């Protein structure tokens, strides 16, 4: 029925935030589940203690065909005027000192959005991607969906997974996805898949979050991956970053 269209299993990651333990655990699970293409929705760095590794890893994935877009923390590395809260600012300044020129250039050159078939990849709400608005409810989601032509938009930024849809009559639905339960993104409506965070979940569940999407069955599966949170938190403390950034990983808040 879908002859001629490509059949790809995507693994989509958002808000890695330099958390090596979380991102490697997610990559392992995604590969075990047959991921054929990687999509990275931005905020590769910031907060976490392994920014060099995180950027190098995404750079290598992009070499191999992965898609990546820029997040506000990535942008702040080369744009010191980007406004952030104090802990985030401290982490960005520390991160800036850790990254070499090729890594900084890689982040600077990431696009704000990428379109692939009928899918749009963007870090935050899509109507004004450079303003970094959160999608925190149906009205934000409606604004985002209406601003694009995509059937499915994938974004991150808020660190809490959600799935929104807009019917042909422009009515919205919102849904907090159940882990590991595939949901078919029906063709008759348009969808906004908000991903949870790989490296700093804030929905009360400390397990790392990502999603798989099958382009043929059009099923999205939100996944949660337990990882060694203690090590990630210890590395934040050991590198002199604000302790709060370590503590919040343990509770996923």
């Amino acid at each position, binding site marked *: *029925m879908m002859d001629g269209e490509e059949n790809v299993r995507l693994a989509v990651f958002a808000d890695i935030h330099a958390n090596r333990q979380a991102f490697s655990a997610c990559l392992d699970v995604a590969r075990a589940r047959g991921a054929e293409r990687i999509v990275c929705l931005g905020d590769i760095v910031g907060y976490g203690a392994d920014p060099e590794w995180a950027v190098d890893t995404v750079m290598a994935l992009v070499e191999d065909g992965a898609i990546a877009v820029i997040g506000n923390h990535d942008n702040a590395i080369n744009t010191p005027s980007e406004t952030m809260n104090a802990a985030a600012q401290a982490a960005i300044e520390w991160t800036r000192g850790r990254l070499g020129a090729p890594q900084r250039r890689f982040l600077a050159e990431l696009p704000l959005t990428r379109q692939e078939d009928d899918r749009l990849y963007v870090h935050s709400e899509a109507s004004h991607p450079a303003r970094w608005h959160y999608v925190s409810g*149906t009205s934000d989601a409606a604004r985002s969906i209406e601003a694009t032509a995509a059937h499915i938009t994938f974004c991150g930024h808020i660190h809490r997974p959600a*799935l929104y*849809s807009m*019917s*042909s*009559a422009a*009515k*919205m*639905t*919102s*849904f907090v996805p*159940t882990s590991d*339960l595939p*949901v*078919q993104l*029906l*063709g*008759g*409506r348009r969808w906004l898949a908000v991903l949870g965070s790989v490296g700093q979940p804030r929905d009360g569940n400390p397990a790392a979050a990502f999603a798989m999407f099958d382009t043929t069955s059009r099923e999205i599966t939100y996944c949660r991956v337990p990882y060694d949170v203690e090590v990630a938190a210890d590395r934040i403390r050991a590198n002199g970053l604000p302790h709060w950034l370590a503590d919040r990983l343990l509770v996923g808040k």
Partner: protein
Amino acid sequence: MAKPVIEPGAELDGFTIGERVHQGGMATLWTVTHPGITVPLLMKVPRISEGEDPAAIVSFEMEQMILPRLAGPHVPGCFGTGTFDRQAYVVMERIPDKTLLSRLGELPIPYEEARVIAGKIATALADLHRQNVIHHDIKPSSIMFRPSGECVLIDFGLSHHTQLPDLLQEEFRLPYGTAPYMAPERLLGVRDDPRSDLFSLGVLLYFFTTGERPFGESETLRGMRRRLWRDPYPPRKLKADYPPWLQEIVLRCLEIEPVWRHPTASQLAFDLAYPDQVKLTARSERLQRDPLSTVWRRRFNRSDTLPKPKSDVAAQLASGPIVVVALDIEEGSGTLNEYLRRAAAQLLTTLPSARLACLHVLKLGLITIDRTLDEQGNNKHINRLVALRHWASPLELDEGRLTVHVLEAVDPAAAILEFTRVNQVDHIVIGARQNSMLRTLLGSVSSKVAAEAACTVTVVRPPRSLQAEASG
């Protein structure tokens, strides 16, 4: 891509269209065949094209999402779906029966027949709820029966799946469904309480046994809202011979507050299966509706009585399990039965909505002719029931939570397993004796039950030293 034509002889995704068997307001049904599928098939095609009636589109989308995820005898099997971007359809198993709607001309039907029908529907609902789906449109035209007798629920266009996006959530300002059957909490926007289906089944049971719809046929929102404060006439007012147990069940289903209804569909099915054990409350005898003072209080202090939406449906179902304790109340089983009682007490104190069924299997000999009376001329069956109630009395359970059953069987394990299956029991508590003569001769009942039951089994075994004491 051109939109495929649906007409006899046409082919769509490998399905060959046969004849049109039904033309409804929302959808058309066609028989279809497929070379790889032997069961009779129906293709349901929505009558609308994209962009027209949003209600029809959304409910078709819901059915497309939900039906392929359902399994078991109480739903039609799903064999394929197509989406609106090309041609929307669902291919499902064709059930060779009319819906219950075909019975409306015969109402009221006999109480016993209604009890059996309602029991089958409750069993089907329990299975559906366990699969995380609330039907939300239980009415005669959504109910069919297989030739083997099981109830099949159809039409999932208004259903809610607790693990999938609810597309109906914000689609309509007014609750969408069939007015006479709609639970009051639905009028307040609650879509995640499985007890809404029990209310609709109560309406159906009331209608089928009295010939009257408890809340009339009003389709206006104003008319429907009355059920938020106004209770229906008790069936006994309409029919003097209405059995009290049946009125108890029906009025409990029709409680305005979901929390006053049966905690789960399984528990409702259980009551319908054992009408002589239904705990009769004041409901069962009522001849009048609630006094106006009560109605006014409900109507004007609604903030007190608003149903609390239950978000965790699975947890709610799990909090109201049916627990069976299989007991041997004959031979000297005192120590073991004491341990069984402790195990039951621990379960029941943590699960206030659980109900307990105490089971004794009266073992029949293979060769000897069994008599109902023992040597002293006492009725064995009655004696066992009395003994079971005596065993349970220290648990101090509300009578509505306790039933006792004596089964007669050659194979006790098989009898316990059959009872468990038929009544959708969630948990069996059974004792194991290590040095019983019976066990040596016949093999262990508890190990067979533990190995073959389709639910959780707790095997209770007193310490060996105590067992020796008891049997020595």
